[in-house]
């Protein structure tokens, strides 16, 4: 069986914040969540999505760190900044294409998801993927995903011509092989189209 990985499936997200609350229980960064929940556009939809570190193959956060405080483990987990090195400049905060790292004034360092290294290194799932009620955050093997899920995992993102490959995958509709992130018009869509039909009659 191949190695387990983290998959994010926004279509399943119910916006409950279990991931956020559970993450903030961790002893290493207690009271501070390394995962956050994005509410997309509440006026028009109840869509939400969890945002975790995508653990890039070539992490921009580490590349721009002047203090070399952000390390990647041999198996590809990009770590929280090393406390003695982090100078709190927040370069990483601005450089990350996914908006993940946050500078925490209380701890005076940048902190981000490290894939629950303490849990995953002993064979457990990351905390967020363990508690997620809808399994919008799933920790499993590529085979489990291929057999069990109806979408396709992608881990290639294009930001203005730059391709970023990540350890964490995003579930997308079948036929998608990469996500080209463009500035595009926001489509306003009422979820109650059927209702409008009834009322217009």
């Amino acid at each position, binding site marked *: 069986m191949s190695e387990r990985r983290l998959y994010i499936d926004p*279509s*399943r*997200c*119910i*916006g*409950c*914040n*279990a991931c*956020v*609350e*559970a993450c*903030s*229980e961790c002893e290493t960064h*207690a*009271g501070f969540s390394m995962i956050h929940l994005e509410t997309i556009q*509440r*006026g*028009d*939809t*109840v*869509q*939400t999505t969890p945002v975790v570190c995508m653990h890039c193959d070539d992490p921009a956060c580490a590349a721009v760190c002047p203090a070399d405080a952000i390390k990647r483990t041999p198996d590809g987990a990009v770590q929280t900044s090393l406390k003695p090195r982090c100078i709190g400049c927040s370069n990483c905060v601005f450089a990350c294409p996914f908006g993940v790292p946050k500078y925490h004034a209380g701890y005076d360092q940048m902190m981000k998801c490290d894939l629950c290294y303490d849990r995953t290194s002993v064979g457990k*799932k990351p*905390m967020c993927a*363990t*508690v*997620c*009620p*809808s*399994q919008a955050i799933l920790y499993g093997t590529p085979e489990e995903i291929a057999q*069990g*899920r*109806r979408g396709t995992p992608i881990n290639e993102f294009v930001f203005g011509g730059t391709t970023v490959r990540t350890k964490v995958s995003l579930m997308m509709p079948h036929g998608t092989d990469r996500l080209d992130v463009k500035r595009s018009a926001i489509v306003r869509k*009422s*979820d*109650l189209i*059927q*209702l409008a*039909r*009834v*009322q217009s009659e």
Partner: protein
Amino acid sequence: MAKLPVPVSQIVAEFGPTLNDEPVGGWRGRGEPDKLVKTHCCFCGQQCGIQLKVRDNRVIGFEPWEEFPFNKGKLCPKGVKRYMQNNHPDRLLAPLKRVEGKGFVPIQWEEAFSTTVREIQRVQSQYGKDAVAFLSGVSLTNEKSYLAGKFARLALQTKELDYNGRLCMVSAGAGNKKAFGVDRAANYWDDILLADVILCTGTNVAECSPITTDYIWRARDRGAKLIMIDPRVTPMVRTCDLHLPIRPGTDSALMTAILRVLIEEGFVNEEFVREHTNGWEETRQVALETSLEEASRICGVHVDDIVKAGRMWGAAKTSFLLHARGIEHQVKGVDNVLSCINIVLATGRIGRPGCGYGTITGQGNGQGGREHGHKCDQLPGNREIENPEHRAYICGVWGIEDSELPHAGHTAQEIMNMIHEGEIKALISICFNPLVSLPDSNFTREALSRLEHFTAIDFFLSETAHHADIVMAGSLHEEEEGTSTSAEGRVIRIRQAVTPPGDAKTDTSILLELARRLGRGQYFQFESSEDIFNELRVASKGGTADYYGITYDRIEKEMGVFWPCPEIGHPGTPRLFEDLQFSKPGGRAVFNPTPYRPPAEETDEEYPVILTTGRVVSQYLSGTQTRRLGGLVELCPEPYVEIHPSLASEHGIADGDWMTVESRRGRVTLRAKVVTTIRPDTVFIPYHWPGKKSANNLTGRFLDPVSKIPEFKRSVVRIRKAEGAGPQED
């Protein structure tokens, strides 16, 4: 004297809700646990398995319990934070008494017990036994639920006993009994995985039973279709295959129309109907009496979508129908439930793998609690209190004469009405916060203030307990041993992780001591929760909810046992009706026609907007527990009004504006949440808050004639923009 001794603000300043943000010792200081206790979450009917971390007799954190089969470690945010109650600054550590002008002051247990007993005896000798009422709740374990029923009937000797499940499961229970003769979800949730079509009606699955969403998604990944019936676009509606955005309060019309589609398009399983049911002909006639166009007009759902739903349901080989309070909290709650069961029976899809039906229990022990005898008309094992054989059996178990067993009393709302009318003079309550959870809060407040005596057993001082004369500091879920029964009908073990803090006592020991002091100790010789369970097993034996074969030992070894389980060697029953034998005459399930009945209140010029109420994922019921947990409160600090932009713009209301919602009973002023995810004729307010923010200032005391559930899901209101929040104190 059950008026407030001091203003609410003063009580709140002393007893909360204050927010507990950090575990005992602070985030950094909680240290390593001495032990991990495998138990369950207390905050919804799914009863997720969870491990509590304990150090020095205090709960300091949690760890997922991945081996527990139902949730496999999954938890919603309530489950994550549930551990913070035991060390909470608001936790009651000693009994209290009301002192006029001072508030609530700590007293010795001796005074708490003797005052309560003296007052009960005074009221009963002056006004009769039934002038004392007992109100209970199903966040309690099976043992405590059983004990509450026996305590009221044998120690207080009153018939006026009911519980907060009256606001929860009673419509489903009554419907299930009429159709199947047994009150339980017909299947365990594993059958959801095998369903080809899943129909959810009146249930915000994502927020009220979050773990169920994974079951539904696993079915969808296999290709199952999902039909959602809901006036709002909830998170599961967002991605479903067919959404019927129903007008609140009209459900039976929609389901009956779907039945009509099944009949007209030849989807009825004639053989099943002929061999295994009664009542089809009349039900069929009623279904054919209402045209789809008429149903569409009533429900505000397009005819094409009704037909689509009928075809999706009709053509499927396997199916699962789930419903919850959305259809049950109505004056035709029971009819709505029956109208759902009719489409299940018409297609004969029950009792087989992937063919299921069930209501989603709302409260922690909503399932088990209602089976064992603190419902005004039921005796343990789901027995009927007016059935002579059932009475005789329980009298035998309890060692009493029939004349000593009270008959059926009144339901929770009726009891409150009787308190208001002065027919009931004294109240003992446990695990119930009617001032927040009953409809028409102003009426409830007035009623409570008329009590001559009120003793509340509670671990936090709930809003209702503000009106108490004596408050007895009881126990949390994690402070006593016991069992509960999940939405699936799985009996599970609740563990005592810690003993009650300070001078607080276990709920059980409080009830036992009261019984002893009332001179009825001979009926309450229990040394442990397990003793109570063992009596419950015998009391339930032969009833439909038969627990006789379930033991603490088995539950632990098997990680839960599904009732009915009539003998020790019996494997338990995850799926009911596999033999197509129903607990009704001739072993046949019963169709019940559901001719449409309108809601209690229709909209008119004065009150043109429909109000519906419900939950948010981060709060539980009346909020007496969850409004004290910092992490949860941050997720949804205040109630709000969900309103469609078209309705909002008619009133000049923008997102975030204060708005006033007013009914014939009262008003609230809250912020508007302007969203296209709700019907334009309907507004929604979550109900977990008290006082001026309470949605139940608006709802009415309109009850289903059978289940006596109030019509929370449909009131009529008028709305206007407000300048500010206005005065917030009561």
